[in-house]
Structures are given as structure tokens and as C-alpha cells.
């Protein structure tokens, strides 16, 4: 057992810190110009603009330790905003299952942050039970197009996306995981209608998307017809590091402590009150443990062995911790967290504190609700099988 980073890792850490401080945002700069310049500089470093892409597709080919260092340092320094859908979700599928023509057609624009993608997975009747999806794709008689009809829901950023990668049903035969086909098509076309869903935080990020006779050329199908479920599932497993947002939570907890120390309670601060103080301590203890759970998971990944049972709890623990940070931030803002914009004398961070908390409730719902994650652990990790006769 050894937790020290190697000399190479330490040198890498220094290099990352250097890069992040040299390219940090300076006040007054045009944010969009800075963003594009940042990615350009990162690309020059050897694929740092696409950290998770493999070397053969222009990524940096980092070791798991290097990924961990990158995640830790960027959480602290801040990086330009980015959308994960093309970069982290579609790109790995194209790399593994797309044709060379598709890779050449789509990957460069994703990397250049020129084309925004959204993900067409969930449907009104297919949430946790995603495989029961019903959006139909029928091949035309000449075999040149699919005609897509159906409804997707919770489609993040569908209202600004240029393209969608979409799970569709091409067959009802066999078990429901069969007959699902992975299609790519533009959002800005006739037959695609986007309706906003306003969430309780007051924000518009998710949408319902309706497809009416949308024509998709067969060359926009990824891999084989009816094999889309396997591709999508591989995608869900692709994100091993970073999914729990632990580095971000560590930084957020430091910020929360500072904020709580600035809130007056009696003659001291909120951090001096026994109940709040012990909740912060409990959170910190859980975070200390989950940080090492992630390191254990990374260590098995870097040894090239299959991830151990500890990896399965990262999403559950990580999202729960993110929610607790939002909740304590709201509580630190006290009654001022109730203000919905407008005038408010309370601490600055309290503005819309309850909105932030409400928004965080979705962390344990999207990307596979916690209940579904626990079912998977029950079967795959604990090895419990149904004995129903």
C-alpha cells in the first residue's frame, strides 16, 4: 500500500498547475474569446482539450493518476464551460462503434466545440426503465432513410443543440433491449419540436422533444441496427473517473466553511453553533472516505484490473454529497435563501439558495436514479439473484 504520487506524477501536477495559472481568466476579458483560446492552448499541450479521448483520436493518453490530478487541479482553478454530450458521451461511442466516415465527419467539430449535441434517451414512459423506450424508427422501402416518430423527455440543452444522438426502436421482437437503434440527426429541421420544461430551481435546461416523420439517412446510423442498447450501455459505463464530482465537492466544502464562518449567530458565527458544525464535520468525514474510495477505484484501473466493488458506490455517494453541500449552503443562508431574486440584505451566497437546493434534487434522479443504481449493485456486486419460483 502506497499513496504517494510518483516523481512523474508530481512533475505532471506542476505542469498542469502552470498551464492552468498561465491561462486563467483575467477580469475584463471577453469570456467567449478566452474560452476558445483556452481550448486552443490546451490542444497545443497535446490533447489537453479532450482529456478523456484516447491517444489514437488525438487525446493525451493519460494514466488514471494523471486524470485524477487533472480533475483535482481543474476543480480548483476553474475551466471554461463545456457541454459533455458530444465530447464525453457521443465521441466514445463513435470511436468504438462508428464508421471511419462518421468519425471523420463528427469528431473534429465536437473537438472544436463548433457543434452542440444533445442526448435523446429518456421518454415519458421510459425513465429508470430506459430499455422500454418506444420512439419508432422505420426504414423506408428504398432502404435509404429511417422515419422517426416519438417523444423524448428530460433532453438537456435540446433548445440550443444542433444535433441529437437518439435511441430509437426499430423492432419489437425479442426482449426489450433488442431492437434499439442508435441514430444521429440534426435538431433544426422540420418534424422536430422542442418544448421547454421549467424545473423547480426556475431554470430551463431540460425539454420535451417531439419527432414527427423525421427523415434520417441510413448512413447516420451508428453501428448495426438493433444493437443500440449495447452501445448506449457501454457509454454509461465509460465515465469511470470524475462521475462522482468528488474533487469539485472538496473545493465546494472549503467554500461552504468560509461562507458559514461569515454568517453571524449571536456573538459568533454559524460555524460555532453545535448542530451546524457537526453536520459540516459529518460531511467532511464522508468526503474523506469517498475520496479514498475513488483513489482505490483508480488504482485498480491503473493496474489494468477490473474495477472492484468500491467503484459502484462512487455515483451514489458522490451525488449524495453534492446534495448535502447544496442543502448546507441553503441552510447557511438561513431565511434569506428563500428570496427569489430581488432585494435581499442577507449574505450574497444566499440568493436563490433554495433554488439551488431544489435543482440539486435531480442529481439522484438523472443518469439512472439511485434506486436503479442500488438494484444494479444488488445483482452485480452482492450477487443476489431472485429466487422467485
Amino acid at each position: 500500500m502506497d499513496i504517494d504520487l510518483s516523481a512523474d506524477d508530481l512533475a505532471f501536477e506542476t505542469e498542469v498547475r502552470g498551464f492552468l495559472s498561465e491561462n486563467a481568466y483575467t477580469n475584463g476579458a471577453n469570456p467567449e474569446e478566452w474560452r476558445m483560446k483556452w481550448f486552443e492552448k490546451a490542444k497545443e499541450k497535446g490533447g489537453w482539450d479532450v482529456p478523456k479521448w484516447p491517444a489514437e483520436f488525438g487525446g493525451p493518453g493519460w494514466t488514471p493518476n494523471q486524470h485524477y490530478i487533472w480533475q483535482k487541479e481543474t476543480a480548483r482553478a476553474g475551466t471554461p464551460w463545456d457541454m459533455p454530450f458530444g465530447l464525453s458521451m457521443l465521441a466514445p461511442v463513435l470511436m468504438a462503434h462508428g464508421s471511419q466516415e462518421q468519425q471523420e465527419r463528427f469528431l473534429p467539430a465536437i473537438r472544436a466545440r463548433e457543434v452542440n449535441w444533445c442526448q435523446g434517451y429518456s421518454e415519458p414512459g421510459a425513465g429508470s426503465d430506459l430499455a422500454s423506450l418506444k420512439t419508432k424508427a422505420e426504414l423506408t422501402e428504398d432502404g435509404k432513410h429511417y422515419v422517426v416518430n416519438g417523444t423524448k423527455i428530460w433532453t438537456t440543452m435540446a433548445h440550443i443543440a444542433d444535433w441529437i444522438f437518439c435511441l430509437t426502436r426499430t423492432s419489437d421482437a425479442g426482449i426489450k433491449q433488442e431492437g434499439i437503434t442508435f441514430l444521429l440527426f440534426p435538431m433544426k429541421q422540420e418534424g422536430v419540436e422542442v418544448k421547454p420544461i421549467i424545473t423547480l430551481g426556475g431554470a430551463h435546461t431540460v425539454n420535451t422533444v417531439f419527432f414527427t416523420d423525421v427523415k434520417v439517412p441510413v448512413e447516420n446510423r451508428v453501428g448495426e441496427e438493433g444493437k443500440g442498447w449495447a452501445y448506449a450501455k457501454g457509454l454509461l459505463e465509460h465515465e469511470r473517473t470524475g462521475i462522482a464530482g468528488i474533487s469539485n465537492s472538496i473545493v465546494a466544502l472549503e467554500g461552504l466553511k468560509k461562507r458559514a464562518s461569515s454568517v453571524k449567530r449571536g456573538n459568533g458565527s454559524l460555524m460555532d453553533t453545535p448542530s451546524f458544525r457537526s453536520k459540516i464535520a459529518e460531511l467532511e468525514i464522508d468526503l474523506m472516505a469517498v475520496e479514498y474510495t475513488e483513489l482505490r477505484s483508480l488504482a485498480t484501473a491503473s493496474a489494468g484490473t477490473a474495477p472492484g466493488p468500491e467503484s459502484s458506490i462512487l455515483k451514489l455517494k458522490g451525488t449524495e454529497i453534492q446534495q448535502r453541500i447544496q442543502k448546507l449552503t441553503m441552510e447557511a443562508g438561513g431565511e434569506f435563501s428563500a428570496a427569489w431574486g430581488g432585494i435581499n440584505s442577507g449574505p450574497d451566497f444566499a440568493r436563490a439558495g433554495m433554488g439551488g437546493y431544489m435543482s440539486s434534487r435531480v442529481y439522484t434522479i438523472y443518469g439512472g436514479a439511485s434506486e436503479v443504481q442500488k438494484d444494479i449493485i444488488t445483482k452485480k456486486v452482492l450477487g443476489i439473484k431472485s429466487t422467485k419460483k
Partner: protein
Amino acid sequence: MNFDLTEEQQLVSDSIERFVQDSYNLESRMALVGKGPGFSEAHWKSMSELGWFGLPFSEDDGGFGGNQLDTMILMEHFGKGLVLEPFLASIVLGGGVLKRAANETQRKQWLETVIDGSKQLALAYSEAESGYEPHNVAVAGTKTADGFTITGTKCMVQHGGTADALVVSFRTSGGTTDKSGISLALIPADREGVTVQGFLTVDGLQSAEIAFDKVAVSADDLLGDVGDGFTVLNATINDGILAIAAEAVGAMEVLYKDTVAYTQEREQFDHALADFQVLQHRMVEMFMEHEQCKSLLYRATMEVANGGDDAQRNIHALKHLIGKAAFFVGENAVQTHGGMGVTEELRVGHYFKRLLVIEAQFGNTDYHLDQFAA
């Protein structure tokens, strides 16, 4: 021993229940939120005609001689409908200070109009750094020939933006956190030097920040004796805690029942969600939390209404349990509704947002735990 309502209370309860059922659904509520006064003037008028505003006032003051139990019955129904009208602000809080501290002239001038609903009050006691303590008062009164001038800012004044007059706490002697030296006054909202800025809170209700710049307060405006306001203020806030706790109990009932109904309708993995034992047990716990809150609500309300020695401790216990249960019931109602639970379209999220604001009002869950344990 008996927890039944009297015949009279049952009649009032039935009438409130009918009103909430007939007048409050999500759509009609959302049409009022954030527009104009942020509530329905017509509902306010109906409530006054039904006589509800007189419930917690003595017959001498023109009321029906009820107490905190009557307010509890009403607020529990209000919680089931997410009622927007300023009953808490004007009747329980503003009226609560008046009935305890006002002199004969003030009673004549104000209580009749408060009880008939033609005038509305708000209680301005909280400040940016008061940290939930009602005795932590920095807004200062400076002695003048006829009274005081007061300067400073009051925060999170519920329905302060539409109130005709404000009940204000201010310091006339002692240090910022002393319980003595706090005075109370009734100040018309349009008096010179008063600046009111209303805003919306996440639960769809209205709040305000109110700045006082050398506002003249005469002896006639003072409520009770100079420097002696804390006892009245604290008793009124305790009434407020009982009232919003009852409202929370009503809201939690809707949340757990909606969850039970939804899980029987929604199917995933070829089963109704309600078939999954993990969800069944979770809903049982939501139900248990709601019942426990109801029990402690009854206990605390009776203890306060009967003037028991343990009243303050009961209040701390109640506000703590209500907050803890509000998080549990609200979070699990939203989680069990899945994606739909976090949208504006279903009512569960709206009930949860109201519970969040209740959790933070008059001292949050942690504050009252620390007070109880102290």
C-alpha cells in the same frame, strides 16, 4: 382525554376544507403568484366574510374568543391548499402583537379593521444579522421629545410589501442581543422615511425588506411599555411557529398521499412503482413522520394555549421536528416522483418549496435543536 374537535370547531374546519378544495388548485394558485399583491383580494374578502380572521381574538376585541387551537385547524387546511393570503402575517403576527400589547385607543383604531380584513399588518422583526434570535435587534430608536426616531433595516418581512401598517421591533436601550430594551411600535407603511421593497420568495409568497430612515414614532404609536417588548414579541413568534407548523403538517399530508397515488399509477419494469418494497417502506416512513409531527403539533399547541410551564421547550421541539420531517417527506416525495417531481408541472415540488421556507422561518431546524438542547 380527547383529541376531538368541538362541534363548533368541526363546522369551521369543514368550511375551511371546502373553501380550499373549491378555490385552490395548482393552476389557479400559479395565476396569482408574483402578480399584483401576490394573492387573491377576492379570497381575502371571502375569508373575512366567513369570519376566520376573528378566530384568535377575544370577544371584547370583536373576535370569537378562540385560541391557538383554532388557528391550528385553519392553518392545517391552508397547508393542504398552499394558500397565499396573508393570514399569518396580518392576523397571527401583526394582530398577535396588537392583542397582547395595544392600548384601548389602538385596539379601537386597528383591531376592528384587521379583523374585518380591510387593513393588513406585517411584523418587521428580523434583521440581516439577527441570526434567528428575535432579541437580536440592531434597528435603533433615538429618544425625542414625543417618542423616538428609528433607523435601520428589517428583512424578510412576510407580506410587508402590501401591509397597511407595520409592527416594528427596535432597540431603545441595552446591547444588541439583550432581551430587555426592545420596544414595539405600529407604524403606517406610508410614513415618511419608510422604504418598502417587496419581493417574491421561492414558495410563491411575498416578502419585503423595509428600511427606516429617521422615522418618527410618537408615544401613541408605541405598543406596550418602552423597553419591554420582548415578551410580547416572543409570544407572538411562538404563535407564528405553531401556525406554520400546522401548515407544514397539512402540506406533508398532501406530499405523502400524492406519492402513494403516483406510485400506484406509474409503471416501470412492468410493475407499478408501488410494487417495489423499497418504495413501500419509504412511503410508510413518510406517513410516520407526518403523524409524529401532528402529535407534537397537538402537544405544543395545547401546552401554549393552556399556558403550560413547558411551552417554550415544546415550541423548540416542534419547530425542530417539523423541519427535519419536511426535508425527509419533501425530498422523498420529489425523488419518488422522479423527473416529474422536479418540474413546475406537478404540485409536489410546490409543496416542498413552501416547506423549505417554513423550515427557515422563525429559526430553522438546527437553531431550535440547539435551543432545545441548551
